[in-house]
């Protein structure tokens, strides 16, 4: 059975179901569980649902220590940039401790944060910072693009024995989609072909999957069959599924909300160059944010961030094998 659900509700459903399933799962963060009326607090009690001060280093570091000793914490960080305040814990503590101990400890931790809020949040709250995390061995990074994936990836992240950064797109918060009832786990490290096609592959991340799907629909009306691949997990990255699609279509456009050189697209382009070069009938094309911070005013913001039109144009350019400006 499935039902229509909003992306944000699907995330919460997974957290509630996993907390019901495993009493070692705890959930805490800033500005939550502030009164006894809080529904999560009512359901799970004050030991397992907690309010924290604005102390990201301690929030994440405490999560690591709790995970090392038998709990499975979910840390609500709200915005991914807040993690930057405590990046030592994210990049250089959580993913290192198991390895440095020769496999003696594990750190089953979920760091949950929204990202890429393009609604006038300006330079410091609209970013995509996953590139800096996807290259750290020991760390997993997931970016759901649909309500169903939001639920399934959260369940998988909570059950995983490694630190997982769970990044949900703010721009998809209110999107609706069919979500399976009850236990639903989307395995980490497995990409999803969101739309099958034969002429070109579009690999897109997070909010950009939605844009890519809309672009593919438009292109279909013009007789162009685009396949849309959503990696879902950026680490581990399902290179196999992406490469298989590129080998099939021979052409690829990579769409990413992040600036070019800090995008997942740049990493994926490298993998395609190494593993599918001889199958390419045209150069790889990246549609990314411009090399600018995200500006405040709407027309400025729209100019910086990729959109459906830029994807359509990029696809056409690749099909025509013509060079166009990024």
């Amino acid at each position, binding site marked *: 059975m499935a039902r229509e659900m909003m992306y944000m509700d699907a995330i919460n459903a997974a957290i509630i179901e996993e907390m019901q399933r495993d009493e070692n799962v705890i959930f805490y963060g800033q500005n939550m569980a502030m009164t006894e009326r809080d529904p999560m607090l009512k359901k799970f009690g004050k030991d397992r649902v907690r309010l924290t001060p604005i102390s990201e280093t301690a929030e*994440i570091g405490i999560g690591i*220590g709790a995970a090392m000793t038998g709990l499975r914490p979910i840390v609500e960080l709200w915005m991914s940039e807040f993690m930057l305040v405590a990046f030592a814990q994210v990049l250089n*503590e959580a993913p290192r*401790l198991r390895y*440095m101990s*020769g*496999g003696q400890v594990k750190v089953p931790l979920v760091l949950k944060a929204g990202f890429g809020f393009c609604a006038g949040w300006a330079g410091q709250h609209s970013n995509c910072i996953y590139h800096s995390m996807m290259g750290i061995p020991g760390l997993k990074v997931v970016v759901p693009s649909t309500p169903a994936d939001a639920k399934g990836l959260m369940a998988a992240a909570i059950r995983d024995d*490694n630190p997982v950064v769970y990044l949900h797109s703010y721009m998809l918060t209110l999107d609706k989609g069919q979500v399976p009832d009850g236990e639903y786990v989307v395995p980490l490290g497995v990409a999803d072909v969101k739309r099958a096609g034969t002429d070109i592959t579009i690999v897109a991340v997070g909010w950009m999957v939605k844009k890519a799907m809309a672009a593919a629909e438009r292109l279909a009306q013009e007789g162009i069959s685009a396949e849309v691949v959503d990696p879902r997990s950026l680490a581990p990255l399902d290179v196999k599924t992406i490469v298989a699609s590129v080998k099939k279509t021979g052409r690829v456009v990579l769409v990413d909300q992040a600036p070019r050189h800090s995008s997942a697209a740049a990493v994926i382009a490298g993998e395609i160059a190494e593993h599918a070069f001889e199958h390419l009938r045209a150069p790889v094309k990246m549609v990314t944010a411009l090399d600018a911070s995200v500006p405040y005013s709407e027309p400025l913001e729209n100019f910086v961030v990729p959109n459906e039109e830029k994807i359509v144009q990029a696809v056409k350019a690749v099909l025509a094998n013509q060079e166009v400006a990024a």
Partner: protein
Amino acid sequence: MPKKHQLSKDRLVWMFTQMVRIREFEEAVKRAFIEHPGVIRGHAHLGDGAEASIVGSLSTRNKTDLAMPSYRCHGYPIVLGTPLRKMMAEVFGRKDGLCKGFGGSMHLADPAHHFPGTSGIIGQSIAHATGAALTAQVKKTGQVVYCFFGDGASKQGAFFESVNMAAVWKLPIVYVLENNQYQAYTHFSLEDANAVAGDPLSKKAAAFSIPGVTVDGTDPVAVHKAVSKAADRARAGKGPSLVETKFYRLSAHGNVITVPPLPTQFPEHEAVAVYGNKKEFAQWKAKDPVVKFRSRLIKTRALTEANAKRIEDAARAEVKDAVEFALASPLPAPEEAVNYVYA
């Protein structure tokens, strides 16, 4: 001191034994740079001078309580029962090392002996220890976490954030601020606001409205007393305390940082090498906690000279065996390197 914390003769001798084992281990690590050049890679940090603080603190623990220090981490697992063979093999980067050669001196971990792991980045492990205390509270295990860190780490954000949260949540943790007087190469009087004002570093506890006390960190009985009180408070659900154990690091911060193939070994202590202060070093060397505790136990007849000698000989033999074991242990197979990335 509550009666249950009175130290019996046997317990005092046990404490002396642990202090001697730590000292012998650290001296062997130091000698290895000269006797077996190249065997220890990277940076090693020794706890000689910290023996009274380590043993005095851990002598108060119940058998499932956890210890979580920084990268200056050799002393604690010695007290917790980790085999010295495995520890030395790890310091030497060998296959039979505690962490199979993946961590080295800075990253000892032995969860089976209540030693979950260590971080090499100053102050960060204070948050991890606080998280372990959260586990103890949520799972109602009755455990107390002993969190050790240096004077340098007490200036890190991780310290302030973690102690605040531990106080808000009343976590079962004892923060042992081991003031060995030098933050790497910098004397603490140059970088600590309490020190600049002439106050003890334990004054930081007042910022979190928790008990804070400074004790003579060269006296294991004084440390035992202060930490007992803090551990009792933690066990009773009243939350954290801060205990500053003030002593003196007897070796330099670490071996000299060199680039291979240049050899490295322990340099002279910063007091002499950097500050030219031979007098300070000599004054603290005269308060060597191991020497002091030995003569005190002999004077109070808790220990005879012959027994002290036996303990020292046994520790020396144990450490010698550990060095021989470590040298004989093979290096790890290169392809092992891709293991343990993910659980």
